[in-house]
């Protein structure tokens, strides 16, 4: 079965290459440009991994991640961000995520991390 991944980022350029990088490895990738629509979709469809940007208009990534955690504890979450100064521990206050990457990141970095979080069965850090 194809592994399903959802990428949420308001930046089309980033969604574009992340989708293609993962698709070429056999992932089924869906793109969303805002948090609200993504949460909507997540209620109807199941995904293995969600990649979520932090700084987005309307609903911030932190809020999106928090809601995913509340309703879908099994989904793996990777946070991506363009701002190093946002990096705190935990990356989203009060919520644990499975991994994060700082932009700019390369295609192998996102591929490796996606593989890794999916394999990782242990507690999230």
């Amino acid at each position: 079965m194809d592994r399903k991944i959802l990428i949420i980022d308001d930046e089309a350029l980033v969604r574009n290459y992340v989708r293609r990088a993962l698709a070429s490895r056999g992932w089924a990738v869906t793109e969303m440009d805002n948090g609200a629509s993504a949460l909507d979709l997540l209620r109807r469809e199941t995904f293995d991994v969600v990649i979520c940007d932090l700084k987005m208009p309307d609903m911030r990534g932190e809020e999106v991640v928090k809601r995913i955690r509340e309703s879908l504890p099994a989904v793996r979450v990777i946070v991506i961000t363009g701002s190093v100064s946002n990096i705190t521990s935990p990356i989203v206050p009060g919520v644990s995520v499975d991994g994060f990457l700082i932009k700019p990141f390369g295609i192998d970095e996102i591929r490796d991390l996606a593989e890794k979080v999916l394999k990782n069965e242990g507690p999230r850090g």
Partner: protein
Amino acid sequence: MTAKAHILIVDDEAQIAEMILASLEANGYTAAVAYNGSQGLERASKEKFDLAIMDIQMPEMDGITALGEIKKIDPEIEVIIATGHGTMGTAIQSMRKGAFDYLHKPFELKELLKVVERAVEKRKFNDIAKVIFSTPKPEDQLRVIIDAVTRILKADESLLVLPDRDGKPRIAVSEGLDDDAGRASRLEMCSRVMLQPASAAKSLQLVESPSLDKKFSDIKGLERVKFSLFLPLVEDNKPVGLININRDADEAYFTEDDMQRARIFGSLVNLALRNSSLYRQLQETQGQLIQAEKMSALGQLAGGLAHEINNPLSGILGLTQLVLESTDKNSQNFADLKEIEKAVFRCKKIIVSLLSFSRQEKTRTEPVNVNEVIEETLTLCARQMELKHVKIVRRLAPGLPMVNADFQQLMQVFLNMFTNARDAMPDGGELAIETRLLKTPAGSEVIMTSISDTGAGINPDIVDKIFDPFFTTKPVGKGTGLGLSVCMGIIHKHNGSIKAQSEPGKGSTFTVSLPV
């Protein structure tokens, strides 16, 4: 010989004017005559005079009006008013308008010459004050002071003694003392004067034949000196230095006039030194404020900018790598795309350095041994230094007190300085690291670390800019121009200071001071 002064005589009585003229010229002055006020003003606007001797009652324009006008033309000119029917009233009026002094006609020429001499002296002091105050470099200022005092007090030798960093007196500048033995004996004499109780050390002192005086008779080499004058420099009511003025001739007594001159001169020098130290403090504080403002503005800008730039940059990197995957490894396209990829990594590095300003990371301070930080940092880069044939010389003072600091951040600072030093010596050289404990004039203690290289040095034109963000002399792609500004940011957070000194061709020294 140059004239003692150039004097303008303004008098409508030709006979008197001529007489004054003749007597001034006979005494080594040069002078010009004007026969009424407006003529006098015309002269003064064309020619530079040190002094004007002005009659008060003249046709057309009276002396009081002319006095006011001439001061407008040349604010520095000294004016002596001469009045034949003087009342106290006109005298006071003229003094208020800025006259130096007044004479009642008929006056004796001797009397006039005395007043002229005093006025010229005042001019001289004014000029010296101007030179001292307008000399920005403290070393030059001391030289000007000693030159002036030698001239004014007709000294055969004069020296200015100041305490060095450890509080030991040393000769800062001297005049008329060429041999080391002579200098040593004068310094010893001055040191003893400075060691007296504060009340004595603060007043002007005169010593006749110091070699016969019991305070100094054991010092060898003072026989030549017949008269010694000691003029203390005082700051905040405390003695901070000493000017020693010596005359060698048998009859060359210091007169009461000389003492008066010395006192005036002393207060002038004290004022000048005070002013210049205040001025330097002001400049330093201003510089720090400007730097701090630049940093914080840049930090804010960087934080916002990083996010905006990282998104498209991420796209460039990802797409480039995607295309690379389907490109023939031997093609030109592949090579070009690799270059693009490298460029993105370079941008990423710049942004990360830039963000070290805006990062709200707290400094975690603990008692830290500066020598330990240096040793630790050296372990990190010892191998690189070896490869570049850079010899490391340690002059680390043992038993230094601890400073409150963030170990990691200090390491970052030292690493940056060591790396800069290494880069300044591409053909090898010497990296000297020295630490020591210093007392500031305010009484607090600082640990000073100096890092010196034997590289090419920093061009004086750019030495002010090296701490500016993005300023770099390294080739494109080699340096971000942020290293030193980050260092400065860190050291300022530690309430310390960082300075650069360089002599082109000989190397540079960076000094980091941290409060204990």
